[in-house]
């Protein structure tokens, strides 16, 4: 087990190196001239050239890459060319907000999607099943930004039950923190909850046709025991895969949701870096995003191996 974790962590290295190269190249090849964006249209050639040299932009690409990489390895992601703030401190401030948002939405969608899927499968073709299925199709079809706006209009404007946005750390002030996160969680998590529900339903129905369920019935076990002990654990295996694939979607969706709910998170940091062509921030953001994705996959693999004993930590 520990060896497996170490081995998986070692696999991070080539992945992250690859991502860092691509991030670096993308940012420098594709984005417009950051210096001209910085200085505005009124800047003279001389001023531009001066700033370019200051930022080290005149050095060859590989030299720039290596010096950036050396900084990153030392925990220094550079400084924002717009605000001059340290990129690592920007990331450390904004990332926890996005993680609260994304993982809260993930927990919500799993917490709702899996039980709803089980109920739907167990009471197949009942009013519960039809109701859950209808909601799920609605949840998949409504874009999260639209849902977010509707939620704000309804719960913040009209009913005035919850704040319309902003962020307070749930660690600092749990009540206010959660009050502000509830609507973003729903807006972001609804689609995933719907996917999880549909997946859990179909996967449980499929498992109920498996031979070992017939064995369990032939053994005289009760329906409850067959479902809860024999079927659900097996049905979760494909569901976990779907959740893992979609946690990435949550991180992407967070950008939009943060914008709507005015959460100054990692998504907004990314968005502003792109808009301002703040390549130093963008490089750091891309690298951290890659790290997050790899970590989520790693966690999913661990859960997967836990659920399915046929998968060994080798």
């Amino acid at each position, binding site marked *: 087990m520990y060896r497996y974790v170490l081995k998986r962590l070692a696999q991070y290295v080539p992945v992250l190196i690859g991502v860092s190269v691509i991030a670096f190249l993308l940012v420098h090849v594709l984005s417009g001239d950051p210096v001209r964006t910085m200085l505005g249209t009124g800047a003279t050639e001389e001023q531009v050239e001066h700033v370019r040299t200051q930022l080290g932009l005149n050095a060859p690409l590989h030299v720039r890459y290596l010096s950036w990489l050396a900084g990153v390895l030392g925990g220094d992601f550079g400084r924002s060319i717009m605000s001059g703030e340290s990129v690592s401190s920007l990331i450390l401030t904004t990332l926890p907000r996005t993680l609260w948002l994304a993982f809260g939405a993930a927990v919500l969608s799993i917490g709702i999607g899996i039980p709803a899927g*089980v109920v739907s499968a167990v009471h197949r073709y009942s009013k519960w099943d039809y109701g859950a299925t209808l909601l799920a199709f609605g949840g998949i079809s409504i874009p999260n930004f639209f849902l977010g706006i509707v939620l704000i209009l309804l719960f913040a404007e009209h009913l005035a039950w919850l704040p319309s946005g902003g962020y307070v750390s749930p660690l600092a002030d749990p009540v206010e923190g959660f009050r502000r996160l509830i609507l973003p969680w729903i807006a972001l998590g609804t689609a995933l909850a719907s996917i999880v529900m549909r997946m859990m339903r179909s996967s449980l129905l499929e498992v109920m046709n*498996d*031979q*070992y369920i*017939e*064995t*369990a*019935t*032939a*053994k*005289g*076990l*009760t*329906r*409850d*025991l067959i*479902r*809860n*002990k*024999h079927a*659900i*654990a*097996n049905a*979760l295996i494909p569901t976990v895969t779907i959740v893992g694939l979609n946690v990435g979607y949550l991180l992407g969706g967070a950008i939009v949701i943060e914008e709507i709910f005015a959460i100054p998170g990692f998504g907004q940091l990314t968005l502003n870096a792109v808009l301002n062509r703040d390549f130093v921030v963008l490089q750091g953001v891309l690298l951290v995003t890659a790290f997050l994705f790899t970590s989520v996959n790693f966690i999913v693999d661990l859960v997967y191996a836990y*659920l*399915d*004993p*046929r998968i060994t930590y080798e």
Partner: protein
Amino acid sequence: MTADPSITSNGESEAKHSPSEPLLSVDGLSVQFQSLDGPIEAVSDIDIRINRGETLGLVGESGSGKSVTARSILRLLDSSASLDGRIHFDDTDLLALDEAELRPIRGNRISMIFQDAGAALNPVLTVGDQVSETIRMHQDIPGEGISGVERNALTSLLRPTDWPKRFEESWARTIELFDRVGIPEPDRRAFEYPHEYSGGMRQRAMIAMALSCRPELLIADEPTTALDVTIEAGILDLIEELQAEFGTAVLFITHDMGVINEVADRVVVMYAGRIVETGPTRELFEHPKHPYTEALLDSVPTLDGTESLDPLSGNVPDPQNRPSGCPFRDRCPEANAACDGRFPPAYGVHPEDEPATVSERGSTTVPEPRRDGSDHATRCVLYGDVDVLQHEPGLSGSSTAEPEGDK
């Protein structure tokens, strides 16, 4: 294995059994499945009797309805199946029971093992857990029933490894069973998952599970079909040994006549959802009366190669368009006009009976049964009214068939 009172009591009841009171009797069982194209009758008019302690072989090609018949007994078919007829198990009408009433019978008094033990064992539970939960379900061991923790989906996901050990008595019995069915190092292997077992070991574990409550009837649905021949022999021996020890009756389903010959006391031959012939194994093998049984026996290779194989051409008719009359007539070398009528009743036969063609009898109607009391019966028009036929000269020597073959 330690002498358990239940073994001897079972053994005694086996000795005491009277042939008039079978352990299981299936009468006129028909099973229909609802499909989009209308109902499909998977099996029709099945009569089966199994006495205590005996082994009944149920043989037939794929699609002949063997498995449907077996699953009907334990009521394992899904809700699209409707069952007609009577299934009596030791004075209980199994078809009249609801789920809750069936449960104390399933796995306890009647248990079942399946063809593919790899698929029949739950991949995410340890083999020991799967065996011991059967014991805990049915044997009232104080403090070792199925716990609420186990019934709860959330806690059962946590799969605490000390679970089995908390139920000392049932776990000890599980280990003992593992040892009895020949699983090496049972203490360790009980904690392993099915994928860590070989095919033969999995089937041994299934047998341990099925026999854990010393059932009166074991339904074995092609238990050795998926196994190597060398492993097959071991599994067959094990089933026979445990059967003798526990006094369990066995309904042994297979398409392999060789296996039937080895294990069965009596044989039921099924074709296209119908029973076509029944009889004591030895007699049926030496004097098959139904052309289908003959064909099955002809397709078994012999060691010395003196008999050439005579495989049957064609396929089992599609259950949705079964022909009227005898379902075998399209493939039957002896088929004649009378076979198109209704499916014949069971004709009691004796080993020396010879078949006759109905055309020679000058009639195209299906003859009425005779000698109902016989152990050996066939549902082929060729054996209707044989008494009369054989007394007329020229018929017994007809070229139709020599049921005894080269034996």
